[in-house]
């Protein structure tokens, strides 16, 4: 008991040290001067909470034992029987839903879809091939800037640029992958992290091409077979609402973007679902399990890893081009490390290699912060807490991966 008490005391003291700069002090503007306001109560509360929790840890963990047993029995949803019907219902619902929803909600849904696409792309690299990539956002940036620059300098349309963005991101993935894939684990993570930063810094400093921190503005929105969604179309073009003979509404554009994102996500899902059942998908899995055995059977590890890296980057490229088109404005601020971290968190939270898990995690990571806007200040705090709790209670992710097994039928 004494041991426990001193342990709790030290933990509370540490909490105090850590929380003083974070929540104990606050910058307050008074006119033109900045003053440091001191709020001891919050620190005291935090210390008290930690002290009590720490003191009662053995009791809590004892009580949790029952919960733990139950959670390990959580069904990893088996919906194989009604799979086709369920998927069809979900897809149809996803297409119809925006027509009965608010503009804000559709907007958030579109953002979620972008993150789903990024999560699915990174899932190839991290989940399937087992390569920790901390600079994934670089390929996202490459895709976004490809579209933005090509449309600014050459006036190319979104539909022409979309494949180019994917291709260019793939080339960057290939170029980065080539030298670094002989590295493993932590080393690979550090190099990819560096690469992500290099891309961002280049975009930030190459003023003459990218506009530096000012970014690129008025990137055109995608068109529907040449129909624009603006109130007045550019010369020679017809706006969508005039063509359809309906009144102008900004919502059409939002719905259109949402559906476009949805289609992109569905294509991504289809491609990835095929990939895991293809020889290359099997090779990723095998390589993750035993690289030496792979080599002894004639599989070239470098090429297999490279294919994962390149394909993962391609999807980031597509997502980037769409992101640029949706925002209409991009600057390097959108492609910071935290973005990579969020995408990685989506993959880890969802369950590495699990596609449904990644989708759920992407929804949770984008929708929840929107719903809890009041707690904006504590966002990162909650984020960290959720991560820790997940690692304790469900390290395999929300929905652990169930790889499709190939069966031998007699």
């Amino acid at each position, binding site marked *: 008991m004494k041991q426990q008490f001193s342990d709790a005391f030290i933990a509370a003291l540490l909490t105090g040290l850590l929380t003083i700069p974070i929540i104990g002090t606050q910058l307050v503007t008074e006119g033109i001067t900045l003053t440091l306001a001191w709020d001891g109560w919050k620190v005291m509360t935090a210390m008290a909470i930690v002290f009590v929790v720490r003191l009662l840890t053995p009791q809590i963990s004892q009580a949790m034992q029952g919960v733990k047993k139950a959670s390990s029995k959580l069904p990893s949803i088996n919906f194989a029987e009604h799979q086709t019907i369920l998927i069809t219902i979900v897809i149809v619902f996803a297409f119809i839903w925006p027509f009965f929803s608010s503009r804000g909600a559709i907007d958030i849904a579109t953002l979620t879809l972008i993150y789903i696409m990024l999560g699915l792309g990174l899932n190839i690299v991290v989940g399937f091939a087992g390569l920790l990539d901390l600079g994934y956002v670089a390929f996202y940036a490459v895709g976004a800037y490809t579209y933005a620059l090509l449309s600014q300098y050459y006036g190319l349309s979104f539909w022409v640029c979309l494949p180019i963005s994917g291709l260019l991101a793939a080339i960057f993935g290939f170029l980065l992958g080539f030298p670094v894939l002989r590295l493993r684990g932590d080393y690979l993570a550090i190099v990819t992290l560096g690469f992500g930063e290099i891309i961002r810094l280049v975009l930030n400093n190459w003023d003459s091409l990218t506009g530096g921190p000012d970014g690129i503005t008025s990137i055109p929105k995608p068109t529907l077979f040449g129909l624009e969604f603006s109130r007045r179309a550019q010369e020679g073009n017809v706006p969508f609402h005039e063509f359809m003979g309906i009144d102008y509404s900004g919502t059409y554009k939002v719905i259109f973007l949402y559906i476009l994102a949805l289609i992109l996500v569905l294509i991504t899902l289809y491609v990835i679902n*095929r*990939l895991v059942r293809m*020889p290359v998908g*099997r090779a990723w899995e*095998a390589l993750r*399990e035993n690289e030496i055995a792979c080599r*002894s059977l004639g599989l070239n*590890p470098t090429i297999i890893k490279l294919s994962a890296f390149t394909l993962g980057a391609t999807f980031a490229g597509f997502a980037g081009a769409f992101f640029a088109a949706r925002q209409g404005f991009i600057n390097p601020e959108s492609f910071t490390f935290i973005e990579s971290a969020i995408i990685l968190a989506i993959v880890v939270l969802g369950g590495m290699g699990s596609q449904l898990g990644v989708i759920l995690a992407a929804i949770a990571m984008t929708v929840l912060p929107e719903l809890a806007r009041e707690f904006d200040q504590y966002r990162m705090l909650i984020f960290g807490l959720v991560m820790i709790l997940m690692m304790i209670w469900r390290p395999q992710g929300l929905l652990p991966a169930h790889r499709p097994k190939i*069966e*031998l039928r007699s």
Partner: protein
Amino acid sequence: MKILLHVENLGMRFGGLVAVDDVSFTMHAHQIMAVIGPNGAGKTTAFNCISGFYTPTQGRVELSGKCISDLPGHDIARLGLVRTFQNIRLFNNMTVTENLLVAQHCNVNTGLLAGLFKTPDFRKKEKQAMEKTAYWLEQVGLLEFANRQADTLAYGQQRRLEIARCMVTSPKLLLLDEPAAGLNPNETADLDQLIMRLRDDHGVSILLIEHDMSLVMGISDKIVVLDQGCNIASGTPAEIRENPDVIRAYLGEE
């Protein structure tokens, strides 16, 4: 007879440690050859050099007349020299079938678009791979476990699966690193039969490291003895049994 594998003055040193020193031997097609020697004699190191997992520091290895000593392991495997491992290396979380499918990676259609759209050629190759899988599972007696996860198999079955996984690559030369380690006498007898069948029915040459002397003496056409990295003797089982150097290496000085 055709020379299949030719090892010449093979040497491997790790810093100051000489693990394999000046080992030479020649192996003909359709032979079963054994490498024996006390623990730490450098047998596995020699295997690693031959199969490309180490780059030998000295000497050369030729497979059917082609120098392979500076090729990486996966290229050597594609030339028809595949191996098993002393500590079994299966893809544990994959099924038995999938283990054999991965091994056929070089023979299936790995084209991205072919796979995405399931072209006729893709389906055909996948089907062939499946058939070959079924055939080899039957050969090693694992057909009933086809859809089990590899690490749920018993130890002896895992050993056989590893051999089957090598065989689906249609090798010319199979290197077995202690295939009988951890097997009971019955299983060892089965393995004996299997190795003979691989040679007689499927035309594969086999080079194996083994400590089980009855197995080695029973099936080998030729034996190479290593001791402290050096090749101290080679010859037929009868010659090796009589060789005083070999007896000394195994039993120690009088």
